[in-house]
C-alpha cells in the first residue's frame, strides 16, 4: 500500500469518495446505513487473509481513504459466499459493493488491482465470455496462467496436470474448439452497447 501504486494524479484522501460510492456503486446507497457493527467481518470465511474486514473498509470509505481502499486486497479476496449479505442487520449488500469496488479499482488503474489474481482471472474470464459467449474453463484457466508469464504458465500447468487429465478423462473438460453461442455477433453488439451506456453514464 504505497503511494507509488496509485495512478498519476490520484489523491490518498478524497473526502468525496464516500459520496461517490454511495451514489455509483451497486447497493452503495445502503452502505450509507452501515452502523459498523462488524457482523460482516465476523462472518467472513477468509477474513484472516484480508487487509481489512468489510466493516473497516466501509469506514475507510467514509474517511475518504480512497487509495487505501482501492489497493486493499479485501476486494480481491472476497469469496462471494454472501454470509455478510444475509447477516447484515442494515441489509447492506456487502458482497455486491466489494465486487463493484474491484471493478472501480481496475477502471481507475490502481497497480495492485491490475496485478491481482482476480483481475487477471477476470480478464481471462471476460475474454472467453465476450468472445464465445460461454466460459471455456480450459481456455480461461490457461489464459489466466499465461498472464503471469510463460514460466509460470508452464509451472502451474504442470502442477495441475493430474487434475486436468482427470477432468479430460471423465469428460468434464474437452479439447478442441471451445463451446460457443450460436449468435456470437448478436451478443457482441449487446455487450458493446452496454459498455457504451456505462461509459457515458460514468463520464
Amino acid at each position, binding site marked *: 500500500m504505497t503511494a507509488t501504486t496509485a495512478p498519476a494524479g490520484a489523491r490518498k484522501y478524497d473526502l468525496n469518495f464516500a459520496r461517490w460510492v454511495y451514489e455509483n456503486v451497486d447497493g452503495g446507497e445502503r452502505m450509507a446505513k452501515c452502523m459498523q457493527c462488524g457482523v460482516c467481518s465476523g462472518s467472513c*470465511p*477468509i477474513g484472516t*487473509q484480508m487487509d481489512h474486514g468489510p466493516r473497516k473498509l466501509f469506514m475507510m470509505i467514509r474517511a475518504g481513504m480512497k487509495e487505501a481502499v482501492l489497493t486493499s486486497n479485501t476486494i480481491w*479476496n*472476497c*469469496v*462471494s*459466499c*454472501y*454470509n455478510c*449479505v*444475509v447477516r447484515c442487520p442494515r441489509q447492506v*449488500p456487502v458482497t455486491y459493493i466489494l*465486487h*463493484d469496488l*474491484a*471493478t472501480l479499482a*481496475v477502471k481507475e488503474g490502481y497497480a495492485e488491482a491490475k496485478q491481482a*489474481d*482476480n*483481475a*487477471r*482471472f*477476470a*480478464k481471462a*474470464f*471476460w*475474454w*472467453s*465470455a465476450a468472445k464465445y*459467449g*460461454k*466460459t*471455456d*474453463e480450459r481456455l480461461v*484457466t490457461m489464459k*489466466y496462467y499465461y498472464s503471469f508469464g510463460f514460466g509460470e504458465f508452464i509451472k502451474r500447468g504442470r502442477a495441475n496436470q*493430474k*487434475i486436468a487429465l*482427470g*477432468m479430460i478423462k*471423465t*469428460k*468434464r*473438460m*474437452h479439447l478442441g474448439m471451445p*463451446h460457443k*453461442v450460436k*449468435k456470437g455477433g*448478436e*451478443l457482441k*453488439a*449487446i*455487450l*458493446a*452497447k*452496454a*459498455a457504451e*451506456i*456505462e461509459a457515458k453514464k460514468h463520464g
Partner: protein
Amino acid sequence: MTKKFTYYPGCSSEGSAAHLDKSLRAIAPKLGVELEDIADWNCCGASVGHIEGGHLPMMALSGRNLAQAQAQGPQDVATPCAACYLNTHHCNEQMRASERLKAEVNEALSAASMNYDANLHVRHICEVLVNDIGFEAVEAQVVKPLKGLKVAGYVGCQTVRPFAATERGGAYDEYDQPKFLDNFTRAVGAEALDFQNRTACCGGSVSVMSPEKTLHLMKNILEEAQEKGADVISTPCPLCQTNVEMFQDQINAQFGTNFQIPVVFYSQLMAVAFGLDADKDAALNQQLIPAPQIAKAAGG
C-alpha cells in the same frame, strides 16, 4: 402431470459439472419436470465478470438470456447452477425494481433487436424441487433406496445465499442451517449426517485462481466429513463439487491428510435411487474420485 420450465444449464454443464446436467435431465421426467433449454444461452458472468466487463455488460449477459426465455413462453426459468441462479435472479429482480436499469438493459438488448419486460421468475432447481415437486414425490420415485449410505450434505453458499429465505427466492429454506439437502438425502433412503459445515465456503472462484488462499477452507469441510464417517459428500453446487473434489490431492500434500472422499450431486443420488443407469443417467463415471459406495448401497 408435467410442469414445464425454461432451462438455463450454464457453462459448467458443458464442462466441469456435466454430470449435474446429465443426472438432472435423467431424473426430471420422473419428477414430472419438463426442461426446455434457452435456445442460445450465454454465460451469466459468474462472480468475476463484473471486474473486467463492468456492471451493465454483466447485466446485459443475463438480459440476453432472459429475453430469449421470454420469447419461449411465460413459464418460470430454472437453473441448477448456484452462480447462474445468483446472477440471473439478481438481474431479473433488479430490473423489476429499477426502471432505470430496465431501460438501460433494454437499450443494450436493442442492439440485437431484443427486449425483456422483466415479468419472468428465475428459480433455482432445488427450490423448484422443494416447493413445486416436494420431498414425497421424490420419495415416491425411489425403487432402490440407498440404505446405509452416510451422506454429508454440503449446500455451500450461493445456492441458498442470499435468496433462499426471500419471497422471490421461494422462501424455501434458511441461510445458516438449511434443511432441504438433508431432506433430499433422506428421501432417497440414505442417512443424512449432522454436517455443521453445510454452508461453509469452499473458496468459490478464488479457489480456482488462488487455491493457496483457500485450501484450508476445503480442508475444514473434508475433515468434518471424514470425522463423521461420510461415504460421500452431496452438493447442489457445480463449483463446490469441483473444488472439494479436485483439490483433495493438493490438500493432502499440504496438510498431511488422507482425504479421498467422493463428492457427488444430489441429482446423481436421486438417479441411482430411481433405478436409472449409474453411468448413462447418474453419470457416476464422471467422478474424479469414484463413488462405488452408492451403487453398493442401492444394490444392497
